[in-house]
């Protein structure tokens, strides 16, 4: 059904995100990364599956937990790992980072690839992404926007506001709600009476449904359907991808409040493992071929780290000159 090369690329994305987060957590512990750092571990399938359904001229908008989206959208491919280098450089605050060290983990944007960017305000990106879709509708093109956000952001009033406006103006936007069931330490069951958050979309007449967020192909298929709806001019779709973090909210949160059995349940349904299995079984690749992909990613990650640590800090003088001119 899916070509091996497609499944390979999906897996490469999944695995790259996994390696990026794992290694960056180590860099954080070594003091090389500072500030806030929110890993996407356990949620890799959502960004990977969703972005695979997009065209080059589409847009995405991301969150504070944005490394996965940036990598998936950045198009790390067999022949181009440069996005990884710019990512690592940015989370290290270096001049060669996506934002020349001005943004950091919470504000990575990749305008050239249609990644409008991460956001430090929970929910802040939802109307912005919806506005990109408004621009598309005005221009009359058939581009699509994917707006990523999580369950906590769904309680910011801008979510229903944006949903409603997307609905009445038939905007080509897919709301990808990454329901990892926590906003920091607040469990979804305590933050709403209806933990199936896609029901909120129905109240606004938006086609809405849930999907297994740990299954990259399930996400991809859902997203493909949603994107098709958008491209046909039928307006927005809401996808609630159910998932779970593999750890705490950020690097320094041990996540002790997460019930062990639930965590184990989700870890057993590891998105990277599931993607690997697809590539082995549906993609009919050998274990060896997979290992070679993994080794290549591992190697590229080390190169990215070397690149980033070699990259200079942005110059304070230049910065002050810029400020002076502003």
């Amino acid at each position, binding site marked *: 059904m899916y070509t091996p090369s497609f499944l390979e690329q999906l897996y490469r994305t999944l695995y790259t995100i996994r390696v990026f987060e794992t290694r960056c957590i180590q860099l954080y512990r070594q003091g090389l990364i500072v500030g806030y750092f929110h890993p996407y571990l356990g949620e890799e399938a959502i960004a990977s599956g969703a972005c695979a359904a997009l065209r080059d001229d589409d847009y995405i908008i991301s969150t504070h937990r944005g490394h996965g989206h940036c990598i998936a959208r950045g198009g790390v491919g067999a022949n181009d790992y440069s996005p990884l280098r710019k990512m690592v450089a940015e989370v290290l605050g270096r001049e060669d980072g996506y934002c020349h060290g001005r943004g950091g983990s919470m504000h990575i944007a990749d305008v050239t690839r249609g990644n409008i960017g991460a956001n430090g305000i929970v929910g802040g990106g939802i*109307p912005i992404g919806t*506005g990109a*879709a408004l621009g598309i509708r005005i221009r009359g093109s058939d581009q699509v926007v994917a707006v990523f956000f999580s369950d906590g952001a769904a309680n910011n009033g801008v979510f229903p506001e944006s949903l409603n406006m997307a609905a009445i103006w038939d905007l080509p936007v897919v709301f990808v709600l990454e329901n990892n069931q926590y906003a920091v330490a607040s469990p979804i069951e305590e933050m709403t009476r209806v933990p199936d958050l896609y029901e909120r979309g129905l109240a606004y007449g938006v086609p809405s449904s849930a999907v297994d967020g740990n299954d990259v192909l399930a996400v991809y298929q859902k997203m493909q359907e949603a994107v098709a709806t958008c491209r046909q001019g039928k307006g927005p779709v809401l996808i609630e991808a159910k998932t779970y973090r593999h750890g705490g909210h950020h690097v320094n949160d041990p996540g002790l409040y997460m019930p062990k059995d639930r965590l184990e349940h989700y870890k057993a349904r590891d998105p990277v493992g599931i993607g690997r299995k697809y590539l082995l079984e549906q993609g009919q690749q050998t274990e060896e071929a997979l290992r070679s992909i993994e080794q290549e990613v591992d190697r590229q990650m080390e190169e990215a780290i070397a690149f980033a640590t070699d990259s200079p800090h942005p110059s304070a003088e230049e910065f002050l000159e810029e400020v002076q001119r502003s």
Partner: protein
Amino acid sequence: MSAMATPVSAPPARVIMYREALNEALREEMIRDARVFLIGGGIAQRGGSYKVTVGLLDQFGPKRVIDAPISESSFTGMGVGAAITGMRPVVEILFVDFTSLIMDQIVNQAAKYRFMSGGKGRVPLVLRTQGGSGGSLAAQHSQSLEAWFYHVPGLKLVMPSTPYDAKGLLKTAIRDDDPVIFIEHKLLYMEKGPVPEQEYTIDFGVGAIRRPGKDVTIVAWSGMVGRALAAAAKLAEQGIDAEVIDPRTLVPLDKEMILASVRKTERLVIVQEAVRRGGVASDIASLVQQEAFDYLDAPIAIVAGKNTPIPFNAHLERAAVPQEGDIIAAAKRCLYLS
């Protein structure tokens, strides 16, 4: 552009209303650039509460003149997103009082995006809104909140006081590649003034000397310019020759024009409708005392709104904001004549 409001050699201009001038600016820029669109409450069908957008729906259709639900925070954010991805939105927030609902999108998103993206992203968004008191609209529809935006790096801030400026500055705002806060005044919409037929824009950061004078400098903007000029006329009757400066844009600010005037008059009165505490007037005063310390012959006087929400009752409303008499008194105080 000359620093004076009207170009010296321009042919005689038509006289139109402030709101008509704004309408022309929007219309011309929408013709000129297909990326420009308008979004706000009641701006399409109704043509706006103050009739600024009348006729634009008919001319440009509902895709470019959009009536939005009462979801200010999100439709402003949508403007931000559209701007980032290549459009030129003009977002209308009916009253500056309601910008309290959209500060996140303006301050944390629009104003910072260019910087946070390492200079790669731009947000060419214009926020049109309207402030000031007058007409008994009470505490939630009468504020002067320019100081909030003035304090935020990444925003430009425009407050036109004449039809001529309203048109020229709005056109410049729409062509700017960064976010511009454009604050109109509710009492000015029906005011008339000369506006040339031919196309023009007005550079930001260039103030206008509304009345040259030598005895005292009066700086005022938006709704207070007229009041300052009226005060200056009365002062002239008493032999006091006031220079009235309208900075027109508060960010960027034509500091040099103000400093040059103060170096000449050695006295400064700053008039703002906003409450005194923490207002833009304080900041201008702080700059002038810093850069023209040795020229000042008297403390800089600030004439400003009282420390109160605006009352509904018309008498109290008037008492809450600067009147002609307050400006005259302040000017005389600066001249040690009171």
